[in-house]
Structures are given as C-alpha cells and as structure tokens.
C-alpha cells in the first residue's frame, strides 16, 4: 500500500476522496483516514486541496494532521508492529518484551528497519489488558506475548 505516487495522482485521488466524504458532519477525520488508507500516509500535496474543498485554511488542516498520532507524513514500512506500552502490559513484563523486540529489529520506537520491512510503534492500550502483554501486527492482535512469541512476531514481520 505504501507506494510513492506522482503528485498529479495524489491530487486527483485526494479530490475524489474529499468529494465523496465532504457531505458528512465533521468530515475532516474521515477524509484523512481515507487518504492514509489510500496512500499509506497523508501526503503534503493533499493538504491544500482538502483545505480548499472544506473551506478551511491550510494551517487548520496541518494543525489537525499533526495533532493525531495516527497520521503519518511519510510511508511506514511494509509491516507495522505496535507494542502496547500501557500499565497492564507493564505489569506482565511488557518493558522486557519491548527491549527484546527493539534489539531483534535493531531499531527504536517510531523507526523503520533499513530494509523497509518493519515500522515499530508504541501504542497505549489495545484493550487486551487481561491477556497482556499485547501487540498488533498489521491489524492482527496478539496477546500473552513472551520472549518466544515476540521473536515469532518479529520473524513474521520480517518476511
């Protein structure tokens, strides 16, 4: 999904997405979600088009995009591994799992492996607090992680 596309294409697709959703009450977040689903990130070229179509200033759109953790300004790796860092996962050794995953991938949170395979992100709660520590790999949830399961997840993400 995370392919670089030519500027023109971004413009056309952005316009189509905004056109389809701008009738909603409070359309900006649904539009940004759709744009990120389309391009894998929110391209800078999309912002002035969204601003114009919604009758907002470009600064307002920029302000919204940068407020939320979910929106990316550049493509992620082919796989996104999210590790829960919140209290329930901490109570079950989540910190150790995080350290191990970072070591296996050779990256820190918010970074992508050099081969572009995996982006590692912290997440504050997946609602899997009764089967901690938990993680999400490309939308698939995983619970009761231990060192072996964490290594398996990393191997899966590497593929």
């Amino acid at each position, binding site marked *: 999904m995370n392919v670089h596309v030519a500027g023109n294409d971004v413009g056309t697709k952005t316009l189509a997405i905004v056109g389809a959703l701008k009738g909603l009450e409070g359309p900006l977040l649904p539009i940004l979600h759709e744009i990120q689903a389309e391009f894998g990130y929110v391209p800078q070229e999309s912002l002035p088009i969204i601003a114009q179509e919604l009758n907002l200033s470009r600064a307002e759109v920029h302000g919204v995009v940068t407020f939320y953790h979910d929106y990316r300004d550049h493509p992620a790796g082919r796989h996104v591994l999210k590790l829960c860092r*919140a209290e329930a996962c901490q109570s079950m050794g989540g910190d150790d799992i995080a350290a191990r995953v970072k070591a296996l991938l050779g990256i820190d949170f918010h970074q992508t492996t050099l081969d572009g395979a995996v982006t590692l992100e912290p997440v504050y709660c997946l*609602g899997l607090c009764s089967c901690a520590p938990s993680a999400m790999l490309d939308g698939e949830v995983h619970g009761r992680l231990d060192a072996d399961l964490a290594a398996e997840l990393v191997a899966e993400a590497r593929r």
Partner: protein
Amino acid sequence: MTVRLYVPRDAAALALGADRVAKKLAEEAAGRGIDITIVRNGSRGMHWLEPLVEVETAAGRIAYGPVKPSDVAGLLDAGLIEGKAHPLCLGKTEEIAFLRNQTRLTFARCGVTDPLSLADYKAHGGLLGLEKAIAMAPADIVKEVTDSGLRGRGGAGFPTGIKWKTVLEAPGEKKYIVCNADEGDSGTFADRMIMEGDPFVLIEGMAIAGLATGATKGYVYTRSEYPHAIAAMSDAIDIARAAGILGPSVLGSGKAFDMEIRTGAGAYVCGEETALLNSLEGKRGVVRAKPPLPALQGFLGRPTVVNNVISLASVPVVMEKGAAYYRDFGMGRSRGTIPIQIAGNVKHGGLYETAFGLTLGEIVDAIGGGTASGRPVRAVQVGGPLGAYFPRALFDTPFDYEAFAAKDGLIGHAGITVFDDTVDMLKQARFAMEFCAVESCGKCTPCRIGSTRGVETADKIAEGIEPEKNRALLTDLCNTMKFGSLCALGGFTPYPVMSAMTHFPEDFSPAPIAQAAE
C-alpha cells in the same frame, strides 16, 4: 442434525488464537463427516480460558478452554460434540463459578448470542426496552433513567438521567447523542467487549436516548486501536437500519433516529468529552472550557448527550425491567451493576459484572485469584492511567464511587490493573507523568508543562538528587495540576503519582547515588 459450536470473535480471544481454533475445528469436523455450525460469539469475559469453545448439548452449553489449535483433534476424539469429558472440559458454562456469581444485566447477552444476529438478540430479550420507550413520553423515559440511579460509567459518575433532562429541555432544532467509545484507559475493555459481543444493545440504548431527548442523530466515537469493534458496530448499524430499528421511523414509531460510527486517530485526550466533540467536528482534539455544557452546546454547537458505551448499553435493561429493578442493586449512591475489568498481572483476568459494593480485596484475591506470576500482590491501579494505586492496606475499600473518592482514588471506568511485588512504584509514577506529557492536548499550562516537569522531577528522585526537596516539589506540582488543569487528564494524573508516593514511600528513597558516593 447440525451441532452448534461457539468460538468467540472478541479481540481478546482472537489475540489468543481463536481464528486458528475455529478453522481447525471446521477442518477436523469436515474430515470426520460431522455436521457443525460455528457461531462466532462475543466473549464470556473469562479471558484466562480463551479461546473458550462451547458446544450446545441437550443439557446446555458445555465449555472447553483454553483451547489451542493442536488440542482440537483430541477434543473431537474425546467427544466434544456430545459435551463429553476431557482435561480441558470446564463443565456447563453457566455453572463456572466466575460466571455463576455475577449479576449480568448490561452484559446479559455478551458471549451468549451471535453478536450480529438480530433474531438471536430478540430471542434474548433485545428491543423490549426500546419498544417500551416508544410507548412513553420523552419526559417519562428520562424520569425512568433518572430513577434507576444510573450514573455515567465512563468515570465521572454523573447521573445519566440529569444529563438527558438538560438536553430534552434545551431548545434546538437538531440534537445529538454522542457515544464516547474512546476507551483509552489501560486495564479497561468493557466498551470493546460490548461493541464486539452485543453491538445491538448499544444501538438500542442510543435509540432510546434519542427518543428521550428529541435527538435524531447519533455518533459512536471509537478508537482506531479497536478495528474489530469498528467492524462489528458498522455491520450491526447496517443490519439495524435494514430492520427499521434505525431510520426515519424507529420501529414504526414515526420518530427518526439514525447513527454512524466514527474513528479517532490515536489521541488519548479525545476520551474527554469536549475534546471528543472537537475531534468529531474535525478539529484538533483540544479540550473546551465548560461552560457551556455539551448538553446545551455540544456537537456543532447543538444540544448533545455525551454518554459512555456502558451507560448507554445499560439503558435497555433499565427500560425493560424498570428503574426499581436496576436501582435495587448496588450500595449508597452507586446503584445498579458495574462491569469490573480485571487486568494486568492476575490469574483470572476478564470481565466481571456485579452490583456495586464488593471490596477491592474480594475482587483481586477471591475473583481474580491473585497474580498470574504467583508472587504477592503489591499494588493495584484502579480506574486506568489516571487512577490511584492502592496498596493491600486499602483492600477493604468497597467498590463504590464515593468510597473510592474518600480514599483519594476513583473507580473510573472500573478497570483494575494488578501488579506483583516486582513493581517499582517510582517508575509507575514517572510513567503517569510521561503519559500525560505525551497525550496532553496542550491547552492548559498545568497539564502541558507540569507533566514534563513531573517526569524530570521523578528522574531526579530516582537519581538521588536532593530527594527530599524534589519529593516536596513533585507534591506541589501535583497540587497545581490537580486544581489548575482544565480537564481530567492533567487534573487526575496526580492520583497515580501521589498515591504511589503516599502508599509506597520506600520506592521514592534514593538508595543508588548515596551508596555510590561512599
């Protein structure tokens, strides 16, 4: 004759391999020529037993768990289809003590029914509350909810009926019901479970709220971290609309109500109702100053009910069985039942719905069974990342809004996170400040700056730099944040910090540097 098997589709079950178990069951049964139907139900809430497989027999549903894909062949060999014995067999589901001792009102159907079968929903008492509400005047519905004593289950504990009354009486052409499903607190998952396991009950609750207040549009604002809940809710809304539960004439009443699901974008503060409204409007999730109250000027400046998922999902049973029935459960000013979420380092983690009034010790030791690690329980955090840490000495505190407030804590969204004796409470206090710094919306200074200074001060204590002075500074900072912040994020972050310092002072003493200096 086809045999009905149940394998949950709840995210907790999926995280433990439920999809693989369901697939293996289908394959193995086909290979043996056994005719089965696999229902993907919600979770019963016994998460240490997930994936929990149930089979419907003449004697009732028999449970097996936790089931791994590799167990499936052996289970079928042992006679799973007839509910026969196996080391993983737990007997009749309803008779498992954890489930049997609960009072399930809001979660009555969760784990029992097929979440997306309207027929199943109706067969288990669904829509009776809405049908009753349709025959009543709006003010009478509001009175019923007020009389039930139902209070906001999101954490603030504000009486739901009073909020509805304000919106009912507010002038306005268009009004809204906004369901706060932005369940970001660690240790909580009740909203997620109801959306995945019984989405129609939330739709029914919102429709009743619409009839009661004159609102015609509803939004469920949930988290991007909950893809399974989003999918289940979206499907359920489509089904409800097709069946005439939602639309221009709710169940033929002539009154309109429709709803949509909206997804957040990873901002914890959007669980605060005014930040949520800004986010829903497509703005930065910045907290609004109150007044004006959202009930008068909420979404797009119009009168808006903002209620938590569990508050709204509890309304159908209140309407169906009456205010008195619901009010008879509980203690003091905490009426009805509360779905307690037992999480973290605990043997029997999951969801336990019960009347208010159990003590914290009963919940953690008797129901939760102590820690998963087998080590002693040292601290439990009640109410999410903004909730206080309780030591064993306070385990006699009854689960009740006022009782927890009296001990400088809160029950919040009723999540309990258990920690064993390896926990470092200074580290937990620092994390509370760090989390607040990451998630602060930035509008008010105590929260925005205070949280960062809090992290630095906690670090200084850990390094043994002027510990006494820095402990005093941290206390002072907490005081400023508590009373000076605009919303609960900055205002309640001091709870975990101060409770850690008060109840576990030994962790705030600077051993390392002093020793190193000798």
